[in-house]
């Protein structure tokens, strides 16, 4: 799996992401500066990592979403190429129009930095095939604006078309107000676009991939992507 990680000023999770991708895919990811107008040839997966691009000025992800490299990402996605946005990356994908909706301030206004449980809603997608449907995984979140919102029509389509891949839940997989850490609509933690090749999620699977991290539940996401591409090749 050849991956390309976008780098914007203010991003700070790109090295964690690179480490996880290197370890699980066996390939060194390319780091692509935001002013570039193209992606490295043969890129399978574009990753928009977490951090605070442009200091979260204006709105989280708003300025990064208008960077030159994003046109190349749009082309890549339009051709069916895989795109993964984590945390600030999810915000950037929403702001760029690659995903619907928006990430608002957490409903209790606090920056949340802790491990959370996620329920994997289905396993038949490139982004979840490393898991079983209904499986509960534990991964960290670190965000102040992760409260997913969209209009009723969009939410209906996301839910009805199975485009919510990850939801916040309790340790035993219950979805409800108590486990909905940031007030997100329908406890949404991660969604895909209509054609299923662009995923945005608030939690950081790249931070739970090695034993030394205390948990390896995040590996499945990357291992699933590798398996998906191996099968497609």
């Amino acid at each position: 799996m050849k991956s390309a990680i976008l780098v914007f000023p203010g991003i700070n999770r790109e090295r964690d992401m690179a480490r996880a991708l290197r370890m699980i895919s066996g390939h060194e990811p390319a780091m692509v500066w935001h002013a570039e107008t193209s992606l490295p040839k043969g890129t399978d997966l574009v990753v928009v990592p977490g951090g605070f691009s442009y200091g979260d000025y204006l709105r989280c992800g708003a300025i990064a979403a208008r960077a030159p490299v994003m046109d190349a990402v749009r082309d890549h996605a339009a051709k069916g190429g895989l795109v993964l946005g984590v945390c600030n990356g999810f915000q950037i994908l929403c702001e760029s129009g690659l995903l619907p909706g928006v990430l608002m301030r957490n409903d209790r206004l606090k920056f949340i930095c802790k491990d959370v449980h996620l329920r994997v809603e289905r396993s038949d997608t490139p982004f979840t095939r490393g898991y079983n449907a209904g499986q509960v995984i534990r991964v960290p979140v670190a965000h102040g604006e992760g409260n997913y919102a969209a209009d009723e029509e969009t939410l209906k389509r996301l839910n009805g078309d199975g485009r919510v891949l990850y939801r916040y839940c309790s340790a035993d997989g219950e979805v409800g107000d108590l486990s909905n850490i940031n007030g997100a609509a329908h406890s949404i933690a991660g969604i895909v676009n209509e054609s299923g090749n662009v995923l945005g999620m608030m939690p950081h699977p790249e931070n739970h991939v090695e034993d030394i991290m205390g948990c390896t539940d995040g590996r499945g996401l990357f291992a699933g992507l590798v398996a998906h591409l191996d099968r497609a090749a």
Partner: protein
Amino acid sequence: MKARVTVTLKTGILDPQGKAIEGALKSLGVDGVASVRQGKVFDIELAGTDKAQAEAALKAAADKLLANTVIENYRVELLG
């Protein structure tokens, strides 16, 4: 030419920051505050003098960047 673009949250969109400010005003004893919604103001200086052109440019600025029209409305004013 000077202009002002005001961006506000659409009705029905939850505004936790506005709520927190509302609570703070109440605890300060400021009477008669029914609700607070927080928005943004952009003061912009334009190079040209053509009003129609200026309005078109400001609208483009708001649509492309200043507002996220999923959750926000905007208003454009030419201040002369």
